[in-house]
C-alpha cells in the first residue's frame, strides 16, 4: 500500500498589483497553482486572472466592478464504488506481496490484465490505461452601485453572475472490469460530458443610519433579493470498444446519449432593524419572506422572523469592572425556512433502462418516476433559541464564551425511502420534527506574556444532542442511508439522529453472554435488526496553542473526540481476506467464550456452554461480517491536527536587499492519531458514500482513499 500511494506536492504562485487614488481604486491579479496528487498521474492546474475596481464619478455615487476568470484542469481517477472499486486490490493484497514492479498486462496483449485477485482490476494497469480529465472555465463577477439619497439613507444594488462550463472526459480502457472482461479483453467505455451552469444573484436594498438621541443609534435595512440558477447537462457514453488506446466516441459499438436541464428561483423580501443604546443594550429584529419555485403552487411563500437582545453588564454596572474586564449576556430567537429539491410540481415518465437498452429496433422504453412527491409539501421551518455569555477577566488574559442552543426543525424536506413493496423508491415529504440542543464553550487564556515570550491557549468544547420527536404518516423509522445492506443510518422516533441500524450478536437472555451456533461454533445473529448507537460524539475538544519566543513562533492543535461509533467496511474485508492483525491466530483452534445454541422455529434454544473448537478462517469471518455490530467501533480519537513553525528574519538582513519583511515557515498536518478504529475515524465524514448510496452517511467508511498527512514549507517576502 505504501508503494502505491506516493507523495503529492503543491506550488502556488500569485502576483497582485493594487493602486488607489482620487479616481477610486483597483486591483489586478494573476495566479497559478500546480498540484500533483498522492496517486501517480493525478493532479490539478489552475490559472486565474482578476480585476477589481471602484469609482466615485461624482459625490453620493459609487460604482464598482469585479471580474474573475479561472481555468481549472483536473486529472484524477474514475473510481468505482464498492465491490468494483479500482483501488480495492491496493488495500486487499497481502502486505507480503508487492504488486509494484510486477507485470500488470500479458506480454502479448496490453489490454489483458494480470490480476492479483479475480474480478478486481490491477490498480497499476488502471493507472497506465484509464483516465478522467475535467476542464472547467469559470467566469464570475459583479456590478455594484451605491447612491446616497439623503443623510444616512443609501440605496445599494449589487448584481452578480457566475457562469461555468465543465467538459469531462472519462476513459475506461478495453479490458476494464466491470465494463467487460479482461480475458479476452472486452468492454471499455469513453464518456464525454458537458455541464453548464449559470447563477444570477441580484440584491437591492435601502439602508438608513441615524442617531435618534445621542444615546440611541438606529440602523434599518429593507431589501429584495433574487437568486436564479440554471443548469444543463449532456452526456454521451460510447461503450464496448472496438480497439484499445483510442478515447473517442467513434470507438464504441454501443453509443447512448442523454441530456438534462434544471432550474430554480428564489425571490426574497427582507427587513432588518438594529437599535443600540449607550453601547450597553442592543436589539436586533429581522424578517424575511421568500417565494420559491420548487414548492407546490399556492404553498410556495414562507416568512421567517428573528429577534436578538444583548446586554453589556460591565457598561451598565461599572463597579463590576473590578471583577470582569468585560461581561455580556445575549439571547436570540430565530426562525429559518428552507427548501427541498428541484422540481416538485409534477412527476412523469422518462426514458428507461430496465437492464435492457432502449430504444432498439424502433421500440422505445419509458417508465414512470420511482419518486413520489407529497401533494402537501410545505417549506421546512427551524426555530432556534440561543443564550450566551462573553466574559473577560484579568485585562483580557482570560476570556470565556458560553453558548446554549436549542433548535426545533419541523418538516425537513427529505426523500423518505419507501418500502420497495410500494413500487416507489422514495417520497419527497416533510419529515417530522427534530430537536437539537447543545453547549459550546470557548476559553482563551494567555498564561505567559512578556516581550520575549508569549503563550496563547484556546480551548474549544462542544457537546450536542439531536433527537427525533415526530415522524410523518405513522412511520416509526426513516432510512437515511444504506451502505449495500451492511449498515444503515436511520432516524427513529425517540432516538438520536442519526442512529446506526443493523444486526447484532444474539445474546443468551439468562446470562447475557454471546451465543455461538451449535452447528458450527460461529456467533449466532440476532434475527431482529435494531438501533446500534450513533456516529455522533459525546463531546469534542480542540486545544490550540500558539507560542512565540523572540522571532520564533510555534503553533499546534490537538483534537480530542470522545464517543460515537464508526463503521469500517475495510475492516470487514480485511478480516475475511486474512489481512488484518486480528486474523493472525487463524491457524490455532479456539473455542469462543459464551453459550452455544440454535434457533428452532424462531425460538432460541440454549444448549449449554460453548465447547466447539473452530479455526478463525474465512468462513468464520464471513459469518461475523453478517453482523453489523461486529464492524462498528468506538470512534474516539486524539489527533495532532496541525503544527506550524516560523522564523522572522532579522531586519538587518533583509533591509540590505530592499525588503520590508521576510520569514521562513514549516507546517505539518495530520501528524499523529490515536484511535481504536480500523481506519481513520474521520475518513468519511462527508455526505455521500463512495457511490454505494447517497444521503447522510456520516460514520461509514466504504473503501475511501486515505486522508493525507501533509508537510510544507515556504518563504514569505514583503516588498
Amino acid at each position: 500500500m505504501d508503494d502505491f500511494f506516493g507523495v503529492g506536492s503543491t506550488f502556488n504562485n500569485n502576483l497582485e498589483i493594487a493602486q488607489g487614488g482620487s479616481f477610486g481604486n483597483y486591483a489586478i491579479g494573476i495566479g497559478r497553482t500546480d498540484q500533483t496528487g498522492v496517486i501517480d498521474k493525478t493532479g490539478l492546474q489552475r490559472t486565474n486572472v482578476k480585476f477589481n475596481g471602484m469609482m466615485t464619478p461624482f459625490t453620493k455615487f459609487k460604482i464598482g466592478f469585479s471580474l474573475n476568470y479561472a481555468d481549472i484542469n483536473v486529472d484524477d481517477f474514475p473510481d468505482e464504488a464498492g465491490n468494483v472499486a479500482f483501488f480495492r486490490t491496493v488495500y486487499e493484497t497481502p502486505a507480503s506481496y508487492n504488486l509494484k514492479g510486477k507485470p500488470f498486462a500479458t506480454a502479448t496483449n496490453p489490454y489483458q490484465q494480470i490480476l492479483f485477485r479475480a474480478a478486481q482490476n490491477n490498480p497499476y494497469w488502471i493507472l497506465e490505461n484509464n483516465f478522467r480529465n475535467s476542464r472547467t472555465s469559470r467566469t464570475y463577477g459583479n456590478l455594484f452601485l451605491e447612491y446616497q439619497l439623503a443623510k444616512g439613507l443609501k440605496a445599494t444594488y449589487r448584481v452578480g453572475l457566475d457562469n461555468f462550463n465543465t467538459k469531462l472526459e472519462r476513459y475506461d480502457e478495453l479490458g476494464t472490469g466491470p465494463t467487460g472482461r479482461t480475458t479476452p479483453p472486452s468492454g471499455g467505455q469513453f464518456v464525454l460530458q458537458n455541464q453548464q451552469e449559470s447563477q444570477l444573484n441580484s440584491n437591492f436594498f435601502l439602508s438608513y443610519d441615524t442617531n435618534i438621541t445621542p444615546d440611541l443609534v438606529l440602523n434599518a435595512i429593507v431589501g429584495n433579493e433574487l437568486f436564479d440558477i440554471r443548469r444543463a447537462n449532456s452526456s454521451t457514453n460510447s461503450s464496448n470498444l472496438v480497439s484499445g488506446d483510442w478515447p473517442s466516441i467513434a470507438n464504441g459499438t454501443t453509443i447512448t446519449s442523454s441530456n438534462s436541464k434544471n432550474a430554480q428561483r428564489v425571490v426574497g423580501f427582507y427587513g432588518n432593524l438594529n437599535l443600540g443604546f449607550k453601547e450597553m443594550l442592543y436589539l436586533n429584529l429581522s424578517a424575511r419572506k421568500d417565494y420559491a419555485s420548487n414548492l407546490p403552487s399556492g404553498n410556495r411563500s414562507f416568512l421567517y422572523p428573528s429577534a436578538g437582545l444583548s446586554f453589556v453588564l460591565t457598561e451598565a454596572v461599572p463597579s463590576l469592572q473590578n471583577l470582569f474586564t468585560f461581561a455580556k449576556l445575549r439571547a436570540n430567537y430565530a426562525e429559518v425556512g428552507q427548501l427541498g429539491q428541484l422540481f416538485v410540481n409534477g412527476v412523469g415518465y422518462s426514458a428507461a433502462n430496465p437492464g435492457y437498452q432502449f430504444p432498439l429496433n424502433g421500440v422505445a422504453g419509458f417508465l414512470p418516476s420511482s419518486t413520489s412527491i407529497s401533494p402537501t409539501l410545505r417549506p421546512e421551518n427551524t426555530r432556534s433559541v440561543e443564550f450566551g455569555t462573553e466574559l473577560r477577566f484579568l485585562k483580557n488574559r482570560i476570556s470565556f464564551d458560553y453558548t446554549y442552543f436549542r433548535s426545533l426543525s419541523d418538516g425537513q424536506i427529505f426523500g423518505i425511502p419507501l418500502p420497495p413493496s410500494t413500487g416507489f423508491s422514495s417520497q419527497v415529504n416533510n419529515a417530522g420534527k427534530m430537536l437539537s440542543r447543545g453547549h459550546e464553550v470557548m476559553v482563551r487564556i494567555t498564561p505567559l506574556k512578556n516581550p520575549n515570550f508569549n503563550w496563547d491557549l484556546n480551548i474549544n468544547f462542544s457537546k450536542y444532542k439531536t433527537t427525533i420527536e415526530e415522524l410523518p404518516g405513522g412511520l416509526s423509522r426513516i432510512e437515511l442511508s444504506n451502505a449495500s445492506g451492511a449498515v444503515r443510518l436511520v432516524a427513529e422516533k425517540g432516538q438520536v439522529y442519526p442512529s446506526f441500524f443493523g444486526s447484532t450478536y444474539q445474546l443468551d437472555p439468562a446470562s447475557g453472554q454471546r451465543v455461538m451456533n451449535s452447528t458450527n461454533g460461529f456467533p449466532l445473529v440476532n434475527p431482529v435488526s435494531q438501533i446500534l448507537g450513533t456516529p455522533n460524539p459525546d463531546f469534542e475538544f480542540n486545544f490550540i496553542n500558539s507560542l512565540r519566543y523572540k522571532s520564533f513562533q510555534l503553533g499546534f492543535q490537538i483534537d480530542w473526540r470522545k464517543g460515537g461509533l464508526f463503521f469500517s467496511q475495510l475492516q470487514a474485508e480485511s478480516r475475511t481476506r486474512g489481512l488484518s492483525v486480528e486474523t493472525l491466530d487463524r491457524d490455532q483452534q479456539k473455542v469462543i467464550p459464551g453459550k452455544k445454541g440454535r434457533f428452532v422455529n424462531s425460538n432460541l434454544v440454549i444448549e449449554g456452554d460453548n465447547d466447539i473448537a473452530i479455526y478463525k478462517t474465512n468462513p468464520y469471518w464471513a459469518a461475523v461480517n453478517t453482523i453489523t455490530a461486529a464492524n462498528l467501533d468506538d470512534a474516539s480519537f486524539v489527533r495532532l491536527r496541525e503544527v506550524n513553525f516560523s522564523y522572522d528574519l532579522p531586519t538587518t538582513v533583509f533591509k540590505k536587499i530592499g525588503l520590508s519583511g521576510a520569514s521562513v515557515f514549516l507546517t505539518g498536518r495530520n501528524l499523529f492519531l490515536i484511535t481504536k478504529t480500523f481506519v481513520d475515524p474521520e475518513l468519511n465524514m462527508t455526505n455521500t458514500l463512495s457511490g454505494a448510496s447517497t444521503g447522510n452517511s456520516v460514520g461509514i467508511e466504504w473503501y475511501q482513499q486515505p486522508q493525507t498527512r501533509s508537510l510544507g514549507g515556504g518563504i514569505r517576502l514583503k516588498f
Partner: protein
Amino acid sequence: MKKTLYFATILALVSTACSDSILNKIDTNPNIISDAPLNTLLPAAQMTTFQRVVSPVSILSGYTSEHTNFTGVNTATKLQVGGGGTIWNNGFLAIRYFNDVRDKADKLQRPGYSAIADIMSAYTLSLLVDVFGDIPYKEASREDIIQPNFDKAQDLYAEMQKLLDSGIQKCDQASAATSRPANDDLVFKGNMTLWKKTAWALKARLHNRLSNVSAQESANQAILAINNAFAPTENFTVSAYQSNPENANPIANNFMNAATIVIADGIVTAMKSFLEPNEEVIADPRANIWFTKIGNKVVTPPTSRGNTDVTLNGTLYSKPLYLQNRPSPLPLLTYPELKFIEAEAQLRLGDKTKAYDAYQTAVRSAMSQAAIFNAAATLTSTQIDSYLARPKVLMGADKLTLKDIINQKYIFLFIFQSQEAYNDVRRTGLISLNDPDGTAKRLPYPVDEISRNANAPQVSDQNTVYQDNARLFWAKL
C-alpha cells in the same frame, strides 16, 4: 417624479419575477414527459420483469436447487440467499408498471395491452410468492399506501388465477389490430393467441403447485388448463436478445461479466440416476453440450463449500456452457414443462398409461430443446434416440415413478429455469441434495422492506429461512 418612476419600474420587475405562473414554469421538469404512450410502457415493463426479476430469481434458485453453486467470495449458499433484494424491489416496480399499463389500456379500450398486463402481473407475482411466501399485494405498488400489509401466499394463489382468467377473457376481446400491441410486445409481437395459451400454461403450473394441498383437484385443473395451452412448438420464451451486453440475456450476461457460477452435484446426481452405475455423467448427451470439462471430466465443488473460481471455462470446476451465449433466448414456460406437469397429474390421478405417454413426450421434447441456447450446440437425433433407448429413461408405464418425472424435469429446467426447479425441490422433496446447511425454505425478506415497513414481519435473516416454520404452504421441504 423621476425617482418614483424608477421605483415603480423596479417594483414591477420584482413582483413579476416571483409570480406563481413564472415560478411554475421554472419548476416544470423538462427532463420528463407527463404521460407516455402504451407502446413505450409495455416493453419497458416487460423487460423489468425479465431482466430484473427473472434473472436474479433464476440465478439464486440455481444455488438453492443445487443446479449450480456460487464460487465468488463466500461460496456458502446460506450466505447468498440474503441477496433477494433486487428480486423484491423490481418485482413490485414491475407490478406497478403493469398496473399502469392496465389502467391506461382500459381507459383507451385496448384490451390486448390490458390482457398482457394481467398475464405479466400474474407471472411476476408468482415469481415473488414462490420465493418469498407471504408478500404484500393488495396494498402494494400503490402511491397512496406507504406501509403495505402482507397477504397470505395461499390467498395470492387465488389472486393469480383471477388475473389469468381476466387476461384470457381480454385476449378474446382483442380482435381489432388497434386493440393490441405489435413490435412493442417483446415476447409475442402482439399475437394474442399465444398470450392466451401462456395464461393457460401458467394456470396449469400454478394449479399443479398445489399438489400437496389438494391432490385430485390440482391434477384435474392442471390437465384442463394444459389442454388449452401450448402446441409442441409453442413456448413462453423471450427471444429479443443480442450479443451486446446492454441487450443481452441477463443470466448469460451476468455470467460473462463475473463467471461465478459452476455446476453443482444436484444436476450431476440427477443425470446419473438415469445412467448405469459404472457410467460417468458425460454419458448423458446433454452433459457434453451443457458443461465445460476439466481434463475431460465434469468436476463439481463440495456443495456450498467450494473455492473461488471465476474463469469462464473453469480451472477448478466445470462451468455451465449455456451461460456463455449473450443472445441466447430466455425460456420462461415451455411445452416440455407442461408435458411433465401432465405426466405428474395423471400419475396422481392413477392413470399410469396417460402418465407414461405424457412423460415420453416430455422427455423427447426436452431433449429436442436441450440445445436451444446456442446455435453451435446440437444434439443429433441418433444421440436423442440412444438416450431414450436406455432402460432407466423409458422404463415402461408400470415402473414410472413421480421421482423419475421430477428428476427428468429437474434436468430439463437446468437451462435458465432453475426457479422452477427450486419450486419442485421444495414441493416434492424428491431431488437428491447435499448442501451441508440444508435447503432454504424461501428467501428472507430484504432488510429494506423490514426497516421501512412496520407491517412487515420484523424477524428475518438468512438463518431463519432454514427453519421448518419458514416452509411455504405448498411445500414438503
